[in-house]
């Protein structure tokens, strides 16, 4: 008597959200099974991998990342180099320097980068901000306007600025919008609801439920993702059926394990190997819990994670 287990296919499904245009456009979501359970039913759109570029450039990145971008002299070239990474599905531009509590780079600087990148690549674009809700709203508004017709993802609206960000991104300029909450299913749901009350169709929303690096309170991330997917698929909760994108690289490359130099802690070995593994391990765990896309930094991580995703499909 062979193994006889029940299939875990659900009657509900995650919404499909497309970003980008043309051949390179990517579809997120659409599955009716638990994360990566392609053996229960085919997963229409495999999880996607994005490459993170920040306006800081690569000066402070690990040797491996720096080396990969060596020789790039402008944002267009950087974008093309990033797009050429094996396994890259989309690009993410993040404007850390714009933070008013930091360098407070003007919105025009962000726009200049956006325009250069948009001109240089036909990869789908995700525009991320600087953590400051007010400044983000400004950047997003201008970015959404400048990128009309490109179907980009504005990543993300949050409780403090969702009205303006969602209205400008989706309603005024026809882009997609992220909904960012901090690792709590109820906050995530609430934000989806209020964004849709602005007039945004739920099919234009990608959730960003927050993340942490493995080892850093990551259990909350796991349980939030697990529960969101359980509600979306098991309970057919339409307000949680948006696909999820997770900015893994930004988190994992900020912790000690990925930044401490080999000189400081010789036993730990080279930075790149540690950083890549922190990034890959966290990304795989996030994907296993339900993220439909991960954002990564290191070319090796991008290649590894996208290869493992393909193997699992």
């Amino acid at each position: 008597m062979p193994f006889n287990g029940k299939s875990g296919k659900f009657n509900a499904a995650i919404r499909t959200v497309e970003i980008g245009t043309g051949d390179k456009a990517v579809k997120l979501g659409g599955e009716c099974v638990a994360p990566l359970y392609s053996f229960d039913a085919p997963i229409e759109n495999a999880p996607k991998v994005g490459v993170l570029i920040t306006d800081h450039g690569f000066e402070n990145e690990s040797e491996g990342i720096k080396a990969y971008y060596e020789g790039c002299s402008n944002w267009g070239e950087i974008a093309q180099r990033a797009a050429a990474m094996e396994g890259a599905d989309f690009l993410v531009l993040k404007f850390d320097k714009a933070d008013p509590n930091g360098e407070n780079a003007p919105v025009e600087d962000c726009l200049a980068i956006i325009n250069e990148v948009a001109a240089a690549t036909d990869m789908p674009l995700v525009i991320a901000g600087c953590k400051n809700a007010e400044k983000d709203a400004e950047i997003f508004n201008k970015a959404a306007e400048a990128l009309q017709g490109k179907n980009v993802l504005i990543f993300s609206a949050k409780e403090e600025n969702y009205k303006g960000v969602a209205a400008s991104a989706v309603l005024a300029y026809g882009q997609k919008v992220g909904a960012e909450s901090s690792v709590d299913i109820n906050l995530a749901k609430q934000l989806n609801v209020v964004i849709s009350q602005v007039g945004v169709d739920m099919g234009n929303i990608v959730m960003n439920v927050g993340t942490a690096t493995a080892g850093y309170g990551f259990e909350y991330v796991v349980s939030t993702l697990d529960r969101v997917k359980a509600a979306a698929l098991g309970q057919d909760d339409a307000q949680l059926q948006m696909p999820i994108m997770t900015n893994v690289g930004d988190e994992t490359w900020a912790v000690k394990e990925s930044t401490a130099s080999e000189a400081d802690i010789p036993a730990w070995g080279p930075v790149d190997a540690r950083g890549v593994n922190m990034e890959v391990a966290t990304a795989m765990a996030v994907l296993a819990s339900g993220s439909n896309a991960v954002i990564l930094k290191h070319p090796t991580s991008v290649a590894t994670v996208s290869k493992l995703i393909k193997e699992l499909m």
Partner: protein
Amino acid sequence: MALKGLDIFKLTPKTNCKECGSPTCMAFSMKVAQGAVDISKCPHMSSDAMAALSEATAPPMKTIKVGTGDAEYSLGGETVLYRHEKTFVSKTRYAVRVNAADVDAKMAVIDNVDYDRISERMHVEMVYVDYTGEADYAETVKKVAGKGKTIILGCTDVAAAKAALDVCAAEKPILNGATAANYAEMVEVAKAAGVVLGVCAANIDELYDTTKAIEGLGYKELVLDCTEGTIKDTFATAVKVRRAALAKNPDRTCGYPSIVNVAALTADTTEQCGLASLFTMKYGSIVVMDQMTYAEALPLFGLRQNVFTDPQKPMKVETGIYPINGADENSVCVTTVDFALTYFLVSGELERSGVPVNLVISDAGGLSVLTSWAAGKFSGNTISKFFQENVEDKVKSRKVIIPGKVAVLKGDIEAKLPGWEVIIAPNEAAQLVKFLKDMQENGEI
């Protein structure tokens, strides 16, 4: 469906005889219902009641013990598929794979990774000794024995396995080598040596049938090797087996811990690390890899430490003074709660500020700032008491920065901690960097 405590209580003798070790029959029943105590601890249960209860209270997934002494580990015994439902009880254990060719080299560095992280020792717990057809497999095993590692014998050759067990049976290894072809002999070998037997197969049906057959021979000290030809099939089997084991109508033939050999799925160590993460999340009781350097250990042990926690009990860090950015006795103090998430968040921002500070963590019951404040565990009393007993003799600075969310404590702390100046931090950790830098620039700290 697990039995409720009251249903169990009804079957107890209700005499509060205390012979089970619990003060009352009710307390005993509740512990049994939680799976904390075995029903057989009650000496006065009628045999009918016992039979009814053993079946109902038997966990759907067996807890299998392997190894001895410090290297004894429990595998399996899970009751849920998701950690938010109930705590995952048995951590994933990582094994390094060795064989005759590389055993010396690998064993030489195996203890390079050995460190503490939030009160837990992190090191390679198991070694998987791969049989490669060598004549003297037992010799290879000998090089691993007695090193404080739980041994897994990856060997489907009955004779070789027998010989290997001769040198290591006392350490309670796992004999991962029963197949559809050899299981009858392997059961005999495992039984004789008193060790746990691993079941290997090409696919899930074969795995299931072989396990069923072994159960038929009366042996239930098993682990199921879910490794198959591809990553996809391996993942599918690991998930399907666990899902069937913990289904509403549990399939007890699936109710055993699992082994996933990611080293057999890819040679690339980065991919192995990614897969180890995947199988830590999804149902690998033992994950076998080619190496465990710090590059693997840092993410995987961190992940495991997070995932295998009580969803209702936040992780706590130890109380004390944590100097950051080279702080000394003259550096300002920053205080917050012992909730691990808060600690990591705050210490990360403090590090980013570059400003030397002494981070003082007192016992706040492992709760977040506002929760512990509301529960009275992070109050003027607790903070001032901790400072008087643990900080005042070690730090000369008399300035302490408290979380913005409990600004209300300022007056109280200043009243109870004479000589100290209390400074209010911003509400969010993310604002700490600018706050500290500004204070430093203005010469306030």
